[in-house]
């Protein structure tokens, strides 16, 4: 019966004390949220840690939850903020030229920060090219994308967010988002052209 419920209704039911509603909601988004985080940070262990933190935040926010937006938009916004927190916290480990100002709250500079993040070592193209299956090829193609373009693509594919929702979540204009998505799709098509 709960399988037919909307995400928002499930979250409200969980806020009212229904643990099964949360299990249903978690089952719907566990994979997509994890992949979003994994593609963004490039480290499975870190992705699992971030994944767990995001869901803990959802649990803690259950009583104050209001369905002002779609649940997926709310969830991936939390995930994005968690990623930014992670980037800020580990800014010293990022090469100095990659971090303009880790303490700056300005969204553009956060975007720059994400833009300049290096890909994880095991996601580097020369590592991934050694394995030639499709999954690795797509991982390679995504890792090769600029982070902001990759973010828009992942929010579209994993989060199911619209351009407006992505624009709102990332703090940029709709046209900017649209442009980033167009570039991302074009680069992916080019990288995967022999598999499509």
């Amino acid at each position, binding site marked *: 019966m709960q399988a037919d419920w909307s995400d928002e209704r499930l979250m409200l039911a969980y806020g009212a004390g229904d643990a099964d509603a949360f299990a249903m909601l978690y089952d719907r988004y566990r*994979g997509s949220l994890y992949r979003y985080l994994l593609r963004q940070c490039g480290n499975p262990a870190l992705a699992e840690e971030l994944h767990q933190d995001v869901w803990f935040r959802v649990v803690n926010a259950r009583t104050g939850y209001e369905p002002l937006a779609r649940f997926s938009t709310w969830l991936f916004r939390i995930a994005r903020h968690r990623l930014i927190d992670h980037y800020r916290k580990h800014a010293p480990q990022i090469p100095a030229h990659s971090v303009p100002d880790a303490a700056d709250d300005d969204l553009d500079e956060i975007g720059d920060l994400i833009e300049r993040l290096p890909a994880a070592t095991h996601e580097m193209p020369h590592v991934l090219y050694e394995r030639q299956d499709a999954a690795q090829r*797509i991982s390679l193609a995504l890792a090769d994308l600029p982070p902001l373009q990759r973010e828009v693509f992942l929010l579209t594919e994993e989060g199911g967010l619209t351009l407006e929702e992505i624009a709102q979540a990332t703090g940029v204009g709709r046209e900017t988002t*649209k442009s980033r998505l167009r570039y991302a799709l074009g680069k992916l098509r080019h990288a995967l052209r022999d598999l499509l």
Partner: protein
Amino acid sequence: MNEVHEDSPKDPQVSEFYRKHATEQPSTAVDERILAAARVAVADRTSRKVPGWWQRWRTPLALGTTLVLTLSLALLHERRPVVLAPEGRAASQKAAVGRAAPAAATSSEQAADSRLAEAVKRDSGDAQPSLPVEVLRPMVPPSGRVPAERIARLPASNAVGESSEAALPAAAVPHNGTAGAPAAPAALGTATTRQDAAPLKPAPAAAVAPPSALTKSRPEEGRAASDWLDEIRALRRQGNPEEAESQLREFRRVYPDYPLPEEFRP
């Protein structure tokens, strides 16, 4: 899940390829930790919020108990007999006499005279020849009728005193209720306005008090002679001979013809 706006850039082949091959999942350990935390959070909240039956019902129970007690007390008060027990009546009479004393120094005498006058009127007249003995007993000595010279003496007294006498039964004669209280000022007012009037006859003296008040106060007014004597005995037993003597003098003033028992004779 995948809602894309119409003008949103699309590449169905890329999207399909991505979804087909992007199959990474979090480990089951992470899943279990998250689900356990979610259940614990809800369980904590539930255990905190659900009160015991006592906490849930204590307010209605308290309200119900208060209501039952209030109703019981109200019903008991309503059903309590109006006539006080003899000792209670005597005590309340004494208290009332004490309260009225400053206002009217000779209240007892005046009240007694007034009662006497009323009794005489009732006795001498043919209106109520069959008046119960219990009513007359406190007012009229058991010897029977009041002597004619006493009847004649009553209206011949000081005018002020007489008019006050006529008024005072309502004020000075103790009542156990509040019926006498409203009557007192009116009666006193009547008395003061009659200071220059001619000597009153016994009948008008009794008629000064409102008939309803008179009727209502009749069973309660004054102490019965036997009760009074009992009180005097009690005072003697308690070692208060002065007060007993004073009460006896008062008694003799009110009931001059009452045959005193041996112990009270000089």
